[in-house]
């Protein structure tokens, strides 16, 4: 079910709802640069969706907050003007800004799980806006709340009104946030990464909802994201930001398909395609990992209350040959990380077999496990918490090998050439983790894993936390290492594009079960299970081919 494309960029309303002229916003002193945003100008017309896109540190969120007047004191607006329907609100009084918020301009945020006040009912949180800005009676307000709830396609409004945020799912909560934002029918909606924290399927529904509401109410939308798939899906016009500068702006197809600025071009090429890169299979490569009927259930014995057992993964079976990469794809809660942790024996599986080169490590006691540790290594998702802040990179690298008898000098030598392998300067060995960026830290983690010369490398969402350009660097690095060391790899991800680019074989998991398993090409081109098909359909910007270098 592909997305019918609503309207193209050419139709422009008469006066723009939002105009931003030469906006410059300062940074607190001592930062690595003087201002967060320099001389940015753009406008948003009625019924138009403008996407602000850029990597972390590009200033896109700062711009959004400056429009709403929510900037903290440490980020002052140094120069430039912001006009809302012609009215200059750059330095408007707090009272005036409060009048405009939710009535004329609204904002929705990234984290649905924490965007709502946990101790107030959803009904009250919507009602609060009406009470503040209108003089409607309680019953009128209640009716309005019920109508907006049904408008955001939430079932059984009365139950929703009385329920607390923690009783709703992520998607439902985001609908409540949208209801709050649009209940007073503002002319401008600012959406700051509204779907980034949601699963692919939920993300698709929310995007469709936003498009629908925007069409019916003719609201102008300033849409902030770093996901180019989403940009391709919703944007009329696109503005690309790099470290606070507006490098390119224009209609969606011009910017995405025919990028003019070098940075945009680099970004377009960094976005992994949905097409599989096939690699010749080396015949006769030995099976490194054989998993048969793996189960993992969390038992919680409550003394008086009912027992609550959570089945994290059941009956998972697959195998990986030397030099091949198996990707496990699935939404959050599907059990993919549980499988990875069972294999690395960070948690103990409750059933099934895990054969590492024929040696079953599923039921090994902790002492016998020691030898096994050397042969399988893992790289985690969050680079900022994978390295011990109090120890230097060198100490982190040599800790593993020295546990297995290697002398300090040989371990240091191995560390030095591994740091080269991951293309990091030799001087980084005696520095502390807090002196490196996210991408650099992830490379160090990879080097640390390789120092053990493992047979199997497990990457658990290893690139999900990185910016697009950094992600590309790390993926190329991994591909290069895989070739050189003929390494078997297990790659866990929720991003289909990354899976397509990296994996030879793909397994799809949903609610703890493996619903599909086959070669990448076969799964991507002819998915058998309808859940896989739904997954592919929900992937944003699915049919869009981003700017191939001119």
């Amino acid at each position: 079910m592909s997305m019918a494309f609503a309207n193209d960029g050419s139709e422009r309303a008469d006066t723009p709802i939002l105009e931003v002229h030469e906006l410059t916003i300062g940074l607190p002193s001592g930062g690595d640069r003087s201002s967060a945003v320099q001389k940015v100008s753009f406008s948003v017309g009625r019924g138009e969706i403008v996407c602000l896109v850029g990597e972390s540190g590009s200033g896109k969120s700062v711009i959004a907050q400056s429009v709403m007047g929510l900037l903290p004191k440490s980020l002052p607006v140094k120069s430039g003007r912001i006009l809302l329907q012609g009215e200059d609100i750059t330095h408007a009084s707090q009272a005036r800004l409060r009048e405009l918020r939710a009535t004329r301009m609204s904002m929705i945020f990234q984290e649905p799980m924490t965007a709502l006040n946990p101790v107030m009912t959803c009904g009250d949180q919507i009602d609060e806006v009406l009470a503040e800005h209108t003089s409607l009676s309680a019953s009128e307000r209640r009716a309005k709340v019920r109508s907006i709830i049904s408008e955001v396609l939430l079932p059984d409004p009365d139950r929703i009104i009385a329920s607390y945020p923690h009783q709703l799912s992520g998607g439902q909560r985001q609908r409540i946030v949208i209801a709050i934002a649009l209940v007073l029918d503002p002319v401008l909606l600012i959406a700051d990464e509204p779907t980034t924290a949601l699963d692919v399927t939920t993300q698709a529904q929310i995007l469709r909802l936003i498009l629908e509401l925007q069409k019916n109410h003719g609201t102008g939308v300033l849409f902030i994201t770093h996901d180019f798939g989403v940009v391709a899906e919703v944007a009329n016009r696109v503005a690309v930001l790099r470290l606070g500068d507006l490098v390119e702006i224009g209609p969606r197809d011009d910017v995405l398909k025919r990028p003019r600025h070098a940075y945009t071009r680099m970004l377009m090429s960094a976005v992994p395609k949905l097409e599989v890169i096939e690699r010749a299979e080396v015949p006769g490569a030995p099976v490194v990992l054989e998993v048969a009927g793996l189960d993992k259930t969390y038992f919680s014995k409550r003394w008086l209350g009912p027992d609550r057992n959570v089945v994290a993964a059941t009956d998972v079976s697959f195998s990986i040959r030397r030099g091949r990469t198996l990707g496990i794809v699935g939404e959050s809660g599907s059990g993919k990380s549980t499988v990875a942790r069972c294999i690395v024996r960070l948690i103990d599986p409750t059933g099934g077999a895990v054969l590492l080169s024929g040696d079953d490590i599923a039921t090994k006691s902790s002492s016998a496990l020691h030898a096994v540790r050397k042969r399988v290594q893992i790289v985690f998702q969050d680079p900022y918490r994978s390295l011990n802040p109090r120890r230097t990179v060198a100490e982190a690298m040599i800790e593993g090998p020295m546990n297995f008898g290697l002398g300090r000098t040989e371990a240091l030598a191995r560390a030095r050439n591994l740091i080269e392998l991951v293309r990091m300067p030799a001087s980084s060995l005696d520095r502390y983790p807090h002196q490196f960026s996210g991408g650099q830290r992830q490379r160090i983690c990879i080097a640390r894993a390789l120092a053990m010369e493992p047979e199997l490398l497990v990457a658990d969402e290893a690139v999900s936390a990185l910016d697009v350009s950094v992600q590309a660097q790390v993926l190329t690095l991994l591909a290069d290492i895989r070739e050189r060391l003929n390494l078997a790899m297990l790659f866990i991800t929720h991003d289909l594009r990354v899976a397509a680019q990296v994996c030879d074989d793909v397994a799809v998991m949903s609610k703890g079960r493996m619903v599909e398993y086959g070669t990448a090409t076969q799964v991507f081109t002819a998915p058998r299970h309808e859940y896989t098909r739904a997954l592919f359909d929900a992937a944003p910007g699915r049919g869009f081919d981003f700017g191939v270098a001119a």
Partner: protein
Amino acid sequence: MATSASPVPAAAPGAAAPDFEALSVESATVVVQPSLWQRVRRNGSVRLGGAVLLLLVAIALAAPWLGTVDPSLFDPASRDLLPGKSGEITTLEGETIEHTFRMGSDSFGRDIYSRVLYGTRVSLLVGLFTAVVAITFGTLLGLMAGYLRWLDGILMRVMDGLMSIPAILIAIALVAMWRGSLLTVVIAIAIPEIPRVTRMVRSLVLTIREEPYVEAAISLGTPTWKIMLRHILPNTVAPLIVQGTFICASGILVEAILSFLGVGLPPDIPTWGNVMAEGRSQFNEFPHNIFFPGIFLAVTVLAVNILGDGLRDTLDPKMAKRV
């Protein structure tokens, strides 16, 4: 309206990969950040609290040369002199010397100025040792409770039990029984503080255990005791230092209260608590007995608390939010 899945064209073999490094927002150069130590030194509260404390330590060390006499020397002739008056004191050898009592004299005729300055020594020592004892035992128990799950239940119940007994009552009971000496007073004050440290260390250990770098260490085959020593302990040092300063402050305060109740250090050892306890019965007539040691006590505890706040804000921003 939805058509079936449209086929995905196979991509042409890898086009020339553009040079990411140059354009990436994350420049390859190493980010220079002020080291922890510089950040701590620059913090206002740390500087203020630290300066006052250094001054007090200087006073404590230089007490004999600051125009003081032997604090236990007394001469009933010059008792209850108001600050600034002068009188005579007989030394142990028996000859009497002229002496101006800058802070007045107590009901024995002892020079309060000398007793307050020498008192700085004991009070600071009490504060320091209390913090050290409480932190060491607390950390030990906290690590065990955090890491050895089977021990956790029992240990935490004992800690809850200890925490439910008011600190002062334990201190009074212990000191009254063991006869006040510096060691017993320190232990008596430290014991009620141990549960708080244990609980903090335990919660820290439980959070750090879940950190990826600890899981990485496990997968690297590092034995448990090494993990505790290398990965868990170093990351609890910052919060422990902060907690230590607050325990030091409360230690000094509790010592004063114990002396006030008559169960503190022996009266002839000059501490602020003893000087105040001695002077309490003449508060209305001669407030200087309580006024001067009270000022010193308040300033010291204030300085230690401010230092603690400063350290907490720099060393452990997360904890800054808690208390």
